[in-house]
């Protein structure tokens, strides 16, 4: 069984952290991953930086630009992660935009992920129908799960379609926004969380976008299986460096 599927069976709310590979410095990737696991994080999304991150707000945009300036590429990331499974056992997911994967070669990319021990991919701009017709077989050959997004605007019908196509978790975008927007969770989000819970989907849901502290984490995971913190963690790294990651995680865990 894939590490993601195993983790999803654990009887607790999962904390997942997103960070941009190669930020704040090119070589910080592995240390950040190891520190996150040590401090009780359940799952990590390693952001592969892209020049034009359409679905991201300023925080992740800036970290991506900085990471690219630092020299991060798909090749560099794979080299950095070569021995990651010697020290890290929680699920690792690569999250990025489709074009860098396409240029690397989808099959070659998936094969590399498999060799390293990456468990899944999140590629927000790879649409469901193209995935199913062109790439699903490749992902499956290399034991990779592909996680799809849903939003408050996604219809029940489409959510069911996505549920059917998913084998890990469904990435539940908390509100109609790019990453890092400030809005907390109000009535609208609660209604959305309820609506999704009522659908009784086969795949657990992990909530992302807008989670920044213990309060938003608890609200998001009242119904859902877990939540992902991205921009807030990157802001923390910008302000505090990589030296005391525990102080960020311990406020939630």
């Amino acid at each position, binding site marked *: 069984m894939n590490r993601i599927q195993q983790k999803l069976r654990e009887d607790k709310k999962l904390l997942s952290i997103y960070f941009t590979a190669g930020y704040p410095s090119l070589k910080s990737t592995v240390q950040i991953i190891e520190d996150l696991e040590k401090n009780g994080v359940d799952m990590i999304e390693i952001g592969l930086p892209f020049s034009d991150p359409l679905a991201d707000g300023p925080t992740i945009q800036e970290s991506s630009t900085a990471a690219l300036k630092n020299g991060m590429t798909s090749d560099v990331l794979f080299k950095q992660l070569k021995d990651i499974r010697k020290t890290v056992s929680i699920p690792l997911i690569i999250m990025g935009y489709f*074009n860098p994967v396409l240029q690397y070669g989808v099959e070659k990319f998936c094969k590399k992920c498999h060799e390293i021990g990456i468990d899944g991919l999140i590629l927000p701009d790879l649409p469901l129908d193209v995935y199913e017709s062109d790439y699903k077989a490749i992902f499956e050959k290399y034991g990779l799960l592909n996680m799809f997004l849903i939003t408050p605007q996604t219809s029940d019908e489409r959510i069911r379609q996505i549920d059917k196509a998913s084998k890990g978790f469904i990435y539940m975008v908390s509100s109609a926004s790019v990453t890092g927007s400030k809005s907390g969770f109000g009535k609208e989000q609660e209604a959305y969380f309820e609506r999704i819970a009522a659908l009784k989907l086969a795949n657990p849901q992990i909530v992302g976008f807008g989670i920044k502290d213990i309060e938003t984490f608890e609200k998001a995971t009242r119904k859902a299986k877990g939540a992902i913190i991205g921009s807030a963690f990157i802001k923390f790294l910008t302000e505090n460096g990589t030296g005391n990651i525990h102080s960020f995680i311990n406020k939630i865990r």
Partner: protein
Amino acid sequence: MKKSGHDSLFGSGGKFHVNEKGYYGEFGGAFIPEMLYPNVEELRQKYLEIMNEESFQKEFHQLLKDYVGRPSPLYFAKRLSEKHGAKIYLKREDLNHTGAHKVNNTVGQILMAKRLGKTRIIAETGAGQHGVATATVCALMGIHCVVYMGEIDIARQAPNVARMKMLGAEVRPATSGSKTLKDATNEAIRDWINNPVDTHYIIGSAIGPHPYPDMVTRFQSVISEEIKWQLMEKEGRENPDYVVACIGGGSNAAGTYYHFLDEPEVGIIAVEAAGKGIDSGESAATSALGKIGIIHGCKTMLMQTADGQITEPYSISAGLDYPGVGPMHSHLYTSGRAEFYSATDDEAMTAGLELSQLEGIIPAIESGHAFAIFQHKKFKPDDVVVMSLSGRGDKDLQTYIDYFKI
């Protein structure tokens, strides 16, 4: 033999047109994050039906006639023809209200937005022509308008920024990346993600996720529809030997080519911006430098690094300063249906000055690139060559002044 003017809304289904899945050959599709799916899908399901409604067509063509000033003239450029040894006709999109072809599309899309029940409009702009054309139709319809524009373009196209503001639009600077058209497009897409319910995104070129390239092309196809009957009046034939247009994202080109795509005797010529030269590292010549990839929700030719990062383009003309081309043009290029050329800043500026002094028409620098074709290709004396004069040069006066030290 004037046609009804309604044909442009019906696809011919030929092999250079979009297929039912949204592809031109291997190019096109909708590579969008799920956040955009409901809006793009709604548009995909409804755009043809709405465009084919009689009331829509009536309103669209009425506005094109009375508000935009169509049909735009097809003008025989006598002195230019003598100079270059061909029968050169200019399709005068520069005479449209707001000064470029962009308004054909914004009139269509604002009517589309109204029928979709949208109450807020966003747009991206490079040269500011699309921004002005969008601000104009929003003023006309009393709809709130936000235009994203790269910080660099705001500086080099100041008159258009002032026009947009005067028309009541809000101009928001895009400060990321190269601070030009690509980044303005990113910001507009992010805005749409943040405002999915009330907002329609009026894309300004034949780019973006399906159905945008096809929808924009259909609205612009009025250009070639008119060329056909106008050329019949002047030359006794519908088909020229060549149609020539500059390509940024490719909307004036798509409109100019549309009704000739399936007429093999019509040569299709595209001119891209070579900036300081194709090999200079400062260029926007996508066909020469690009590779297939994904940009702004569409699979197409784009300039990128080996690692798949989109390259920052350069051109003296803000409207051509884009690292990709629309999917139709990628297909025209790889299938060999169209000949692709590129013109440097210097060639385009020289061609702009030449047109000014031979014909009394100061073109937009974007259009100047199309006219640089005569520095690259020799035509036969009896070749009928129709040039898309996509816009007028008023907005570029400062750039001309600086360049020629006028």
